[in-house]
């Protein structure tokens, strides 16, 4: 069975979720091909097919698009007609149809796919007819941004997708609920497979006994508004007013650096906060090991691998209730879940954890480690994905 994954870029080394998924499928006898917008020579796990790019210059664009379309029309005539017809049937304009054809050419040229699996729902927009034209089945993954944020800006963007998709993969129940509200049919088969981490790499047998002084707090996140870092900083500035000594480190870079660095300055915690920038994957583990509390106070979050990693290392995790996070951490069992966008609540929760007796902290941490080990291992994920395509062969 051949599965074609459609992604924007090939997964990087640190994207264990996808790399492991591909590896697991290959081990289980599946043939996997990757369809990306920008290929990467560093990715060697399976074959890559790149979408024809669009040149920036007007004349070049016209020339390239024209040439490719004529070429496709001549050598893939049947597929060409089927696709254009399907686009028309979906009520799309001619221009839109041709645009979608051009964007999907790399997929349409490969005739022997059994499954076309879109890695994010956004990747499927404009390519809803591809699978049917190829005679393949269509799967789509819900990952977070694509379900929670993108449709807010583009209402109705998934209407056709909901009609065409054969099977859905979601990483959390919450995302699925949002998708139902967006119009996904309850009849569409759905499978929840949460992200997973390399347990052997992160797992430590030693349970942290006492907190450092000052308390070391950590977040691994892109500097993006959806990560709720401004609210986190505000909670920490309140914590400082409670005379708690702490140091906060944010690993990650991004477009909101100016906003966050200024917030830290204006809130009076500049000297207590370190923006560590981008840190190599191997070093992140050291940061986990040297910290006491992990915060992920996102406004929107699919599931969050970093929270799994932090739990595996034995950190006490405080997360927001955004989408998958409350499934990632179980409130008062494996960590704490705080309503999002409320810095005062977050501060109170942190304060409680800091004054929690040692045994209680250790119990929480051990429960979290156990749960991550049993429920979020790579092996479990590989088995789940293998079954994902099997059980749909009806």
């Amino acid at each position, binding site marked *: 069975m051949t599965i074609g994954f459609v992604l924007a870029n090939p997964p990087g080394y640190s994207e264990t979720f996808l790399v492991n998924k591909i590896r697991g499928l290959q081990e289980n006898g599946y043939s996997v091909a990757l369809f990306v917008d920008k290929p990467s020579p560093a990715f060697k796990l399976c074959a890559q097919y790149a979408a024809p790019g669009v040149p920036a210059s007007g004349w070049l664009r016209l020339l390239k698009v024209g040439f490719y379309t004529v070429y496709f029309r001549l050598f893939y005539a049947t597929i060409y007609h089927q696709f254009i017809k399907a686009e028309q049937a979906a009520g799309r304009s001619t221009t839109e149809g041709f645009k979608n054809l051009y964007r999907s050419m790399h997929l349409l040229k490969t005739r022997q796919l059994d499954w076309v699996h879109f890695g994010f729902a956004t990747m499927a927009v404009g390519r809803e007819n591809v699978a049917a034209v190829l005679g393949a089945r269509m799967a789509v993954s819900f990952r977070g941004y694509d379900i*929670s*944020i993108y449709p*807010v*800006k583009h209402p109705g963007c998934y209407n056709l997708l909901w009609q065409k998709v054969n099977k859905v993969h979601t990483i959390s129940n919450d995302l699925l609920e949002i998708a139902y509200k967006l119009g996904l049919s309850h009849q569409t088969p759905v499978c929840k497979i949460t992200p997973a981490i390399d347990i052997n790499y992160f797992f430590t047998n030693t349970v942290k006994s006492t907190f450092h002084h000052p308390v070391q707090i950590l977040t691994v996140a892109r500097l993006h*508004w*959806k990560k709720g870092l*401004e609210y986190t900083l*505000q909670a920490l500035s309140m914590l400082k007013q409670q005379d708690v000594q702490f140091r906060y480190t944010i690993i990650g870079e991004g477009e*909101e*650096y*100016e*906003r966050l*660095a*200024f*917030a830290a*300055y*204006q*809130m009076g915690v*500049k000297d207590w906060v370190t923006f560590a920038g981008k840190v190599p994957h191997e070093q992140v583990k050291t940061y986990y090991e040297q910290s006491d509390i992990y915060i992920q106070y996102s*406004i*929107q979050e699919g599931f969050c691998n970093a929270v799994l990693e932090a739990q595996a290392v034995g950190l006490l995790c405080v997360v927001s209730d955004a989408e998958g996070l409350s499934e990632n951490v179980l409130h008062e069992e494996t960590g704490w879940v705080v309503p999002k*966008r409320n810095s005062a609540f977050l501060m109170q929760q942190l304060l409680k954890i800091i004054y929690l007796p040692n045994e209680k902290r250790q119990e929480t941490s051990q429960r979290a480690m156990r749960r991550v080990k049993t429920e979020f291992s790579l092996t479990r994920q590989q088995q789940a994905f293998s079954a994902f395509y099997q059980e749909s062969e009806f």
Partner: protein
Amino acid sequence: MLQYWRKKCNCLKISIVSTLKIFLFDGSLNPPTFIKTLLEQLAAKDVKCYLVGFGNNKQAAKLDRRIKIIALGDNRSQWSGVEVAVKMAVKSLVQQPTALQKNVRHFLRASGTPLRKRLNDFNLRNAISLHQPDLIHIQWATHIADVEYLLKTPQGPKIVVSLRGKLVNVTPHIDEKIDQLYARTFPQVDAFHAVSKHIGDAILSYKVAPKKIRVIYSGVQQQGIPQKNKPHPIIARPLQILSIGRFHWKKGYHYALDALYLLAQKNISFHYTIIAGGNNEELLFHINDLGLQEYVTILPALPHVEVFKKLAEADVFLLPSVEEGIANVVLEAMAVGVPVISSDFGGIKEVIRHGENGYLFQNRNVRDLATQVEYFLQQSPETLEKLVMNARATVAKQHNLSQLGENMMVLYKEILQTA
């Protein structure tokens, strides 16, 4: 006859000597409205005014004819910079050969920096040596780097730097290089124009003598502004709250939405309109996530007349910004007669006195913002009428745009006289 010409020449000489030559350096050739207004007011005062910036003549704003434009070449095209460089070099060869020699030497020496930056430098230096302005007014503080070399030459033009918003309040705290640049250059600058006392005080840490800092408030054109009749909220309809300004993190719109969510929870009837232009993913997500779709409208950028119309229709103007120099839009709202609720960031406290001519809430404090809106709703029409009158008086007295050029001239003359 000979005497006549001699007299005429003398007159001409005097007029040349006495006419002030000023470079306004904005970086671009299409500056924001308040800089255009300043240029036009200065030009009307018998000052030889030059707008200097990167770009080509096509990109330049349409300004009063008396204002000369010095285009230093388009930043996006290297050729444009080369073209200007050649033209200026030829002119300098005839008029300022010694200066040209120096500028060429600098150009060759700076071989480590990118060519575009070197061309920009070369063109700016030639423009300065060719026109020999009496004074260069840097509109955006970071551009001080471009004229840093002049600070070391006592016979060179005087340097005035404007201190506006983010470049002074935010950038040096998060960018060490800018902090160092200010520390190196600011003590040698001849004078500073601060848009608020607060922003002026912010540079005292760079060892700047306080007497060099002059607060000249920005202002609004008082004539032609529509006047709102009834300043009190009409109870029969939802409270109309208005914010104006492009989407940018410093505008703090997400705090406003968080606060409005609290009000919606309390069943307070309101409608919030943001005139911003374009859609912003973060804000749309927030509105949707908080379930405020029915309560919030985002409007595209509107022409000035329309904006004033919307202001006059609003019950209250809200400024949730986390940082600004002084927001002009607040002054406009006050001039129209709309009560203002603003965050208490830096300079705004020089305009708004809480409860007297507007309302302030603690910066970034969502609960306080919500409380202020509720407090506003409890005010009697008489109190609000008085508040609006006070606000109008503040703007008329402290923020009259027609005095901008005049005030700036006083500053220019003072530093030129001390020379």
